[in-house]
């Protein structure tokens, strides 16, 4: 064999080295002045690249996103964006300006309307809407980024990064990019002599930019107890009594809705009255919800692993290292990928909210004019068929769901907790999900169902609980769902005789069937009734963001 025909095995590495050399023109070592950001990005990114502009559930590489959106579309075009959160207006600008073309993502939150519009207009070519774990998985198989633009709190001159409490997706993005010939560019809030702890080692980072402003973090998980209604309290009582106590749920994950916040605030009061302390809700895969503070302070919680952090919770978390995962520096270490795995395999229950539920129990947060994405819900809210360790709640749910005698098999409890009417009296229970028509209109190969009906075990409303595990036919499931759907058209279309039979079998449970006195469903049952109460519970350690301070 001659050298002329020998195959090159390190073309991608050579390409990376060339890009690093091109970027070095704008840098002093790894350090790049903020004013050079756009020029740096134009030199290290190539047209057609797969690119991750770190947009997590919470923290945003906002300086890098803005600098990229300001790039020359003649130099940078056809980029394929692969990131979990499309949250900033700049993320959409990339597509509007022709810099990016294709999108694979998980969650869009505040940009859900803009995404729907861009898909209709054809400015975004959609790859797929993923769950977090799915997108992370694809980073290592067929969606590996060529360049990752990430955010951290501080860096030293070598390029070691400290992410602080909001580590979130960073280690996963960097792992995929840095070890597969990619370029990693980090924006940091400050440059320091020594980082408090090393979250990302320097040899995985190519360029560091001190951003003009600290990166943006969205306070997504703060629910003001003042907004909780007596319906939320009633639903929380139903869930605690009819599900948590019934199955003995100790390992769990909560979504971000108001009704789950009500559960958190009822543990030290209603839960205590029922003698459930230590028997339920001890181990969590959860963001640090401020509404969990009273339960933590009352000794209910043993430990919590976090996907991300929450604005204002830093000092509180740092003062409770027995509960949270913290670094040697004392602050929270979160990790979205690992916490998603924890929620999937090590929790016996997921409980969350949704915008629409159909007669088979399928749910979706996609409305005709809004594509909010999935985030982690489809993973948290699914029965992992690869689970092999038993636990009491898991086995009990498995027994209830088994129609024939066979080998014992467990089942994860997946609970949807909804008010039967949403904003502007829009019914949550519907004959057909909006996402079915939308998938048709946009010619999507897959209808964007968030949690599939066959994974849902219980639906909780203010009317009662539908236990779908105890339903044996599609007809029974439909009537169990109608039987708790309140005064929506779906609810009023129930077969009253069949609902009564399902109630006898405890496939439907109303408050009186669980010994719940509706008179007790009052706001005074909440352990905290305002944000200020939460601050008091935390002994002043919780520092709520300005928009939640009204005193």
């Amino acid at each position, binding site marked *: 064999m001659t050298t002329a025909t020998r195959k090159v095995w390190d073309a991608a590495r050579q390409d990376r080295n060339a890009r690093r050399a091109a970027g070095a023109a704008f840098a002093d070592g790894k350090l790049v002045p903020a004013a050079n950001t756009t020029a740096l990005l134009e030199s290290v990114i190539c047209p057609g690249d797969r690119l991750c502009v770190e947009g997590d559930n919470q923290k945003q590489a906002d300086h890098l996103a803005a600098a990229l959106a300001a790039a020359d579309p003649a130099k940078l075009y056809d980029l394929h964006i692969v990131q979990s959160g499309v949250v900033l207006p700049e993320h959409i600008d990339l597509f509007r300006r022709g810099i990016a073309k294709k999108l694979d993502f998980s969650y869009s939150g505040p940009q859900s309307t803009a995404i729907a519009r861009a898909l209709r207009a054809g400015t975004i070519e959609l790859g797929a809407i993923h769950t977090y774990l799915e997108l992370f998985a694809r980073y290592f198989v067929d969606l590996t980024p060529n360049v990752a633009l990430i955010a951290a709190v501080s860096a030293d001159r070598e390029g070691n990064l400290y992410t602080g409490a909001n580590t979130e997706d960073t280690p996963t993005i960097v792992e995929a990019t840095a070890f597969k010939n990619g370029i990693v560019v980090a924006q940091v809030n400050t440059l320091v002599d020594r980082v408090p702890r090393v979250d990302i080692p320097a040899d995985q980072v190519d360029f560091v930019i001190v951003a003009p402003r600290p990166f943006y973090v969205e306070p997504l998980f703060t629910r003001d107890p003042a907004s909780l209604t*007596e319906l939320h309290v009633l639903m929380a009582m139903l869930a605690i009594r009819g599900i948590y106590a019934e199955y003995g749920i100790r390992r769990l994950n909560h979504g971000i809705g108001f009704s789950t916040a009500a559960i958190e605030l009822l543990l030290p009061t209603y839960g205590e009255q029922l003698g459930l302390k230590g028997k339920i809700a001890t181990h969590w895969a959860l963001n640090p919800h401020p509404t969990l503070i009273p339960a933590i302070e009352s000794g209910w919680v043993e430990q919590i692993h976090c996907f991300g952090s929450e604005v204002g919770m830093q000092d509180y978390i740092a003062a409770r290292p027995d509960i949270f995962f913290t670094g040697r520096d004392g602050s929270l270490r979160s990790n979205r990928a690992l916490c998603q795995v924890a929620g999937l395999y090590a929790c016996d229950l997921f409980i969350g909210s949704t915008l629409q539920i159909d007669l088979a129990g399928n749910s979706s947060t996609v409305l005709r004019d809004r594509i909010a994405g999935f985030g982690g819900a489809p993973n948290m809210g699914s029965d992992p068929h690869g689970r092999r360790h038993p636990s009491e709640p898991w086995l009990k749910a498995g027994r209830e769901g088994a129609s024939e005698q066979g080998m014992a098999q467990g089942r994860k409890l997946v609970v949807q907790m909804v*008010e*039967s*009417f949403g904003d502007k009296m829009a019914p949550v229970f519907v004959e057909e999900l909006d996402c079915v028509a939308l998938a048709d209109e946009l010619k999507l190969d897959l209808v964007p169902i968030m949690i599939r009906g066959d994974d849902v075990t219980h639906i909780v409303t*203010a009317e009662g609980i539908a236990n779908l595990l105890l339903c044996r036919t599609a007809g029974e499931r439909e009537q169990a769902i109608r039987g708790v759907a309140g*005064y929506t058209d779906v609810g009023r279309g129930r077969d009253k005789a069949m609902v009564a039979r399902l109630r006898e079998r405890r496939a439907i449970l109303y408050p009186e069937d669980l010994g719940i006195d509706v*008179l007790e*469903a009052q706001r005074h049952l909440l352990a905290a009734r305002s944000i200020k109460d939460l601050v008091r519970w935390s002994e002043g350690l919780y520092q709520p963001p300005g928009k939640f301070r009204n005193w």
Partner: protein
Amino acid sequence: METIDICHSGLKPLPGRKPWALVGVVASGNLEVLLEREEGDRCYVHIETSVPGFATVWRAVVEDFVTRAAPGGLRISINDCGARPDTVSLRLLQGARLMEDAP
């Protein structure tokens, strides 16, 4: 503003002796329910609502309430500020429970 009057008769008398009770508050998305005891086996419900066009839903809510609570001998006045049906239902049940308690 829409006014709806609903009357069910032949009901078992509501237990307890409390002559009247007031639950809820006049606030957006909420409602105020006044329950007064009177002679007879009827449950008379008078609704003043700020959201017109929901008479069918109101009738369904009251019908369920009558089935669940057996509220014979009650005059109920509702001042609704756009509460959702679930809230209305909870308030009615809470009101009846309050009347059952000792005065």
